[in-house]
C-alpha cells in the first residue's frame, strides 16, 4: 500500500509517476527518511547514527544476518579491521564500545620499517591511551546487527539484492526482490562496485596495482605487546596487526602472480613461504584462519554526492590496505555525512538535494585523496629500487626522531586531524 494512493486529490491531479507507483504496489514499499544500500560495517554504523538523530532508515543488504546462519560464515571470515582511536569515538557515541571491547585488541604502538630505517610511534605521542583497536570482522558484524535490531528506527532488509536504483524527484527508488524503498536520499555503502554510484553516474577514477593482498590470521610465537607492525618487502608491504590471544591479522601484499601461488599452497607450505620471506620479522608464525585475497587498487569517486545520493566507504574510495585506513575513511565518511544531513534537516532543507549534500564532498574528498596519496607514496617508494628505499627509510627515521612529527603521524593514523564531525569530537 503506497502513501501516494492516500492523497485525497481527484484522480486527474495525479501525475503519471504517482499513478504508476500506486499501481505497482504489489511489492512492499518502504518509505524511510534515508535508504542505505549495503549492510556492511559502514552501512550499519551509518543507519544507527542517523537513527539516533531521529531519521528512519532502511538498510538493504544482500547478505545473511549473523544470527541466522551467518554466525558460521562470520567465524570463517578472518578479516579484521584497525579502528583508529578517532573513529572508535563513533562507536563509543553509539553505545557500542562495551560490546566491542569484549573481543577488541588495543593497539598501543605502530611501527613502519624498511630494511633500513623506519618510524615507530606510540600512543603517548598523541596523548591517548591507545592508538586504536583491532576488531575482527565477525565480532563487528554481530555487534552492529544486534544494535540495529534493537533500534526501532532502523529496518534491516537482509538477503535483499538491489536490482535497480533510480535517482529522481521527489525521491530515490531502490528496487529489491519483493520490495521497494522510496526515500529522499539513498546512501551507497555498497562497496567498490557500488550500484548507487553507477546510478548517480559518478566516475570511479584510479588504477589497480599489480598486487594482491592476502589476509589471514596467524598465531604468533611471542606476545605482540599491542604493536601494529608493517614491514616493506621488495614486492609490497606486509602488515601484522595484533589480535586477542597473541594472534595477529596478517596482510601480505604480493605481486598478483606470486599471490596466486601462495593461495594455492597448503597451510604448511604457506607457513614455510612466510618464514622464508619474513622470518626475522615474524618468527614461527602458524596459520590460525582461512586465507582471503583481494586485489589492491586506488580508486576515488569524482564526487561523493549527487542529487538524491551520497557515497560512503568503499563505494567512494578504495585505497591501499597499507596502514589499515580503509574502514577508518569509511567511518569518517559516516560521521561527516551524519552531520551534513542533520544540519540540512534541522534547517528544513531537502536532505537529498545537491545543495544540501555538497558540503559532504567538500569535507571528505580532500582527506580521502590525501590519505590515498600517502599510502600510494609509501607503497611505491618502498617497492622502488634499493637506493630509493634506503633514502625513504632514512627519511622516515629522521622524521621519527622529531617528537612533533611523531605526534602528527600518530594523530593522522588515529584519525584525529582536521575538522572533526560531532560523532568524533574529543
Amino acid at each position, binding site marked *: 500500500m503506497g502513501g501516494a494512493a492516500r492523497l485525497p486529490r481527484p484522480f486527474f491531479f495525479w501525475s503519471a509517476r504517482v499513478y504508476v507507483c500506486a499501481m505497482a504496489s504489489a511489492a512492499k514499499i518502504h518509505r524511510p527518511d534515508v535508504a542505505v544500500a549495503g549492510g556492511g560495517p559502514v552501512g550499519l554504523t551509518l543507519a544507527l547514527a542517523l537513527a539516533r538523530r531521529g531519521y528512519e532508515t532502511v538498510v538493504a543488504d544482500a547478505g545473511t544476518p549473523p544470527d541466522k546462519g551467518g554466525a558460521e560464515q562470520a567465524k570463517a571470515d578472518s578479516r579484521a579491521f584497525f579502528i583508529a582511536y578517532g573513529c572508535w569515538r563513533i562507536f563509543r557515541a553509539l553505545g557500542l564500545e562495551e560490546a566491542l571491547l569484549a573481543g577488541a585488541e588495543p593497539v598501543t604502538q605502530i611501527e613502519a620499517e624498511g630494511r633500513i630505517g623506519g618510524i615507530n610511534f606510540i600512543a603517548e605521542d598523541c596523548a591517548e591511551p591507545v592508538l586504536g583497536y583491532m576488531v575482527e570482522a565477525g565480532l563487528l558484524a554481530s555487534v552492529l546487527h544486534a544494535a540495529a535490531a534493537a533500534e526501532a528506527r532502523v529496518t534491516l532488509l537482509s538477503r535483499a539484492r538491489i536490482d535497480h536504483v533510480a535517482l529522481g524527484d*521527489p525521491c530515490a527508488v531502490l528496487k529489491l526482490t519483493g520490495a521497494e524503498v522510496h526515500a529522499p536520499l539513498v546512501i551507497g555503502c555498497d562497496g567498490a562496485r557500488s550500484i548507487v554510484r553507477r546510478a548517480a553516474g559518478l566516475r570511479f577514477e584510479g588504477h589497480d596495482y599489480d598486487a594482491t593482498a592476502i589476509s589471514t590470521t596467524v598465531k604468533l610465537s611471542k606476545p605482540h605487546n599491542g604493536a601494529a607492525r608493517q614491514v616493506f618487502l621488495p614486492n609490497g608491504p606486509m602488515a601484522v596487526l595484533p589480535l586477542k590471544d597473541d594472534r595477529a591479522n596478517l596482510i601480505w601484499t604480493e605481486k598478483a602472480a606470486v599471490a596466486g601461488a601462495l593461495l594455492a599452497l597448503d597451510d604448511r607450505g604457506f607457513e614455510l613461504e612466510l618464514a622464508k620471506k619474513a622470518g626475522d620479522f615474524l618468527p614461527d608464525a602458524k596459520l590460525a584462519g582461512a586465507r582471503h585475497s583481494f586485489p589492491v587498487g586506488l580508486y576515488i569517486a569524482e564526487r561523493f554526492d549527487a542529487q538524491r545520493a551520497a557515497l560512503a566507504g568503499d563505494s567512494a574510495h578504495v585505497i591501499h590496505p597499507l596502514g589499515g585506513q580503509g574502514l577508518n575513511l569509511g567511518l569518517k565518511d559516516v560521521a561527516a555525512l551524519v552531520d551534513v544531513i542533520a*544540519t540540512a534537516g*534541522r*534547517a*528544513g532543507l531537502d536532505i537529498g*538535494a545537491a545543495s544540501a549534500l*555538497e558540503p559532504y564532498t567538500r569535507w571528505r574528498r580532500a582527506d580521502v585523496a590525501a590519505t590515498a596519496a600517502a599510502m600510494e607514496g609509501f607503497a611505491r617508494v618502498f617497492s622502488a629500487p634499493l637506493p630509493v628505499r634506503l633514502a625513504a627509510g632514512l627519511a622516515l627515521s629522521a622524521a621519527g626522531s622529531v617528537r612533533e612529527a611523531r605526534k602528527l603521524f600518530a594523530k593522522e593514523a588515529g584519525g584525529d586531524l582536521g575538522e572533526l564531525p560531532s560523532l568524533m569530537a574529543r
Partner: protein
Amino acid sequence: MLLPDRINSINQRAIGHELHGGASLTSHPRRTTCVSKPEPVARRNKRSYPMGKTLVRDETIPEAPSVDPAEIDKFRTMAADWWSPTGKFAPLHKFNPARLTFIRDTAVAHFGLDAESRRPLEGLRLLDAGCGGGLVTEPMARLGAHAVGVDAGDKNIKAAMVHADQVQVDVDYRVGAVEGLIASGEPKFDIVLALEVVEHVSDPAQFLGDCAGLLAPGGLMVMATLNRTPKAFALAVVGAEHVLRWLPVGTHEWSKFVTPDEARIALTGAGLAVQAPVGVSFSPFTGKWTLGRDASVNYMIVATRPKN
C-alpha cells in the same frame, strides 16, 4: 478585521480554511500543483475589479497563479536555477543554512517548541514576504509550518510552485504584495519573515509596518537585510557584484540599504518589541556564514508582538 468592505469572495475562501493544527497539509485546498487552477478562481479574480481599470501590482490581492502545462518546462528550468548550489543563486545557498537554522532556533525558543522534533513548526502560520524562488518558504514548510510565500514576481512564484510540487512539499504560494494581504483580510500569522527584501522595496518603513501588521499577538517577526555602512558598500556592492561576481551588477543599490535603527523605529512604530540586531558575516577562509555581533554588513532583527 481590516477594511471589511474590500473583502471579496476570494478572501472568504481563505478565511474559511481550517488553518491551524488539525488540517492535514495534503488535503489543503491550496496545495500547489502543476495542473492549471480550476477556472472559477480566475473568473472571480477578474470580477473583483471594475472593467477597464489598470491594475497596479501593489493593489493586487495575492493569489496563487496557474502554471500553464505548456510552460512547465520553462519554470522547471527556472526552478533548477534557483535551487542549484552552483548556479546564479549560489551565494544564497551558502547563506541559507545559517539563517534557516537561526529562524528555527529563534522560533523554537520563542514559542517553547520541541527542539528535537523534525517538524517543530507544526501548526504555525508563517508568511515569507518576498519569497523569490522559495528558498526559505519551502524549508519552513518542511519544518511543519503552514507556509505562505508571497512575491511580486509572477515567474518567481511559478518556479517556486513547480519546485515545491517536484519535491512534494505543501507551500501556499501567491503572487502579489504584502499590503494586498492586509487588504484582503488575510488571517494574521504566527511568524512573519522579511528576508533580503527590505532593501528592494520603495518604502521600507511602510513595508516593515505592513509586515508587522500581519503579525498575530504573541507572534515572531524576523527581518534580514544589508546595513547602510561604507563597509557594506565595499563588500556587498563592490565586492560581491563587481569583484567576486557573486551577484549580477545592479542587484543592490546601496542608498536603499536600511540601518538597524531605521528598522527598529519602523517596527517599534508598528507596535513590536524589537531585539538587538544579529550580525551575519562571511569568513573567506572557511567559506562559511556565521552569526555574530558584527551587524555592519548583513544583519537580522528579531521582533515580537506582545500578547495583548
